């Protein structure tokens, strides 16, 4: 794949719950998350927070490469979200992502989602 795609989904709750629960954003990234593509992720996170979505799940299962710039973008996302009331970031990672996070000693900084599909 040659693109980073981010799909936003509103929380699949009742309309009443949606009114009282902050929005949930789910991002699916595909292809390399590197110096070239990481700025798009940063911008998407900032936009989401500005619009009040402070619970973000990022699906990285289709990511094919992760460099320092990509990890830095994930770290910044965590920092920005955790600075918000009830802000959270969860990652769904594949082997490529887990290896990069382990190699950089950053894996413990993230909440990894290992459950069924997001």
């Amino acid at each position, binding site marked *: 794949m040659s*693109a980073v795609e981010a799909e936003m989904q509103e929380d699949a709750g009742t309309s009443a719950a949606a009114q009282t629960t902050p929005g949930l954003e789910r991002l699916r990234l595909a292809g390399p998350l590197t110096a070239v593509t990481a700025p798009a992720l940063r911008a998407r996170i900032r936009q989401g927070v500005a619009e009040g979505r402070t619970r973000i799940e990022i699906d990285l299962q289709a990511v094919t490469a992760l*460099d320092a710039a990509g990890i830095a973008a994930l770290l910044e996302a965590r920092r920005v979200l955790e600075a918000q009331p009830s802000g959270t970031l969860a990652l769904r990672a594949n082997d490529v992502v887990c290896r990069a996070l382990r190699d950089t000693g*950053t894996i413990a900084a993230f909440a990894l989602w290992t459950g069924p599909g997001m």
Partner: protein
Amino acid sequence: MISVEHQGPDAPSQSTRPRERGSVISRGTRVYLRTFTPADLDHLSAWVDDPFLERMVGSEFLQSYKHVWDKSPAFFEAVLTDPTQIVLVIEAQRGWTKPVGVVRLFNIHLLEGYAFLETIITDVRAMKRGFGVEAGKLVSYYGVDVLGLRRIEAKVYEYNVLSMNSLRRNGFRQEGILRQAGFDGERYWDLVIFGILKEEIETQRQKDKVYLPLDPPEGNGREPS
């Protein structure tokens, strides 16, 4: 849904950017930094056999390509997927048909916020033109702004006065000396350690000026320790 075109080496064929050009990451007045591409391996192959570069820089990056990877094309993928380094190619804004060098941040420690800098100007004709100074400056900004670094460190052979002057022009301070830590094949040389902190990089950014022409190196560039 948002979709961002990836302009890197594996960009789709309909991309208008030539495959070998990579993506521009940072742009200065004299040089710009772009991503490393498979086509750059041809340049690397020439650079690793340059004895002048070997002596002046002693780059582990170049040595690894030659001796560990035996100039294998797989080196590109290894670099791309190495989360502890960022490798960027230095291109002059005008007047050059080939890259003038490579700059990289390596041993990146994202949580601790520090990394090491290596700047290699590979064409002798491109030296003393401020290319290395500006490339070092741009990648330092990148380290602070994108990677969240708070400290950058560099090592220089004691005889490489040009590199020491370049680092000083970017606000790096000499922090120490590793005595006889370098070997050039004939004798041991001291390695001079330089470092810069985030606040000092910001100070340099406010000046944001490249000094040209560069003063010629004079005498021993090492400060007394």
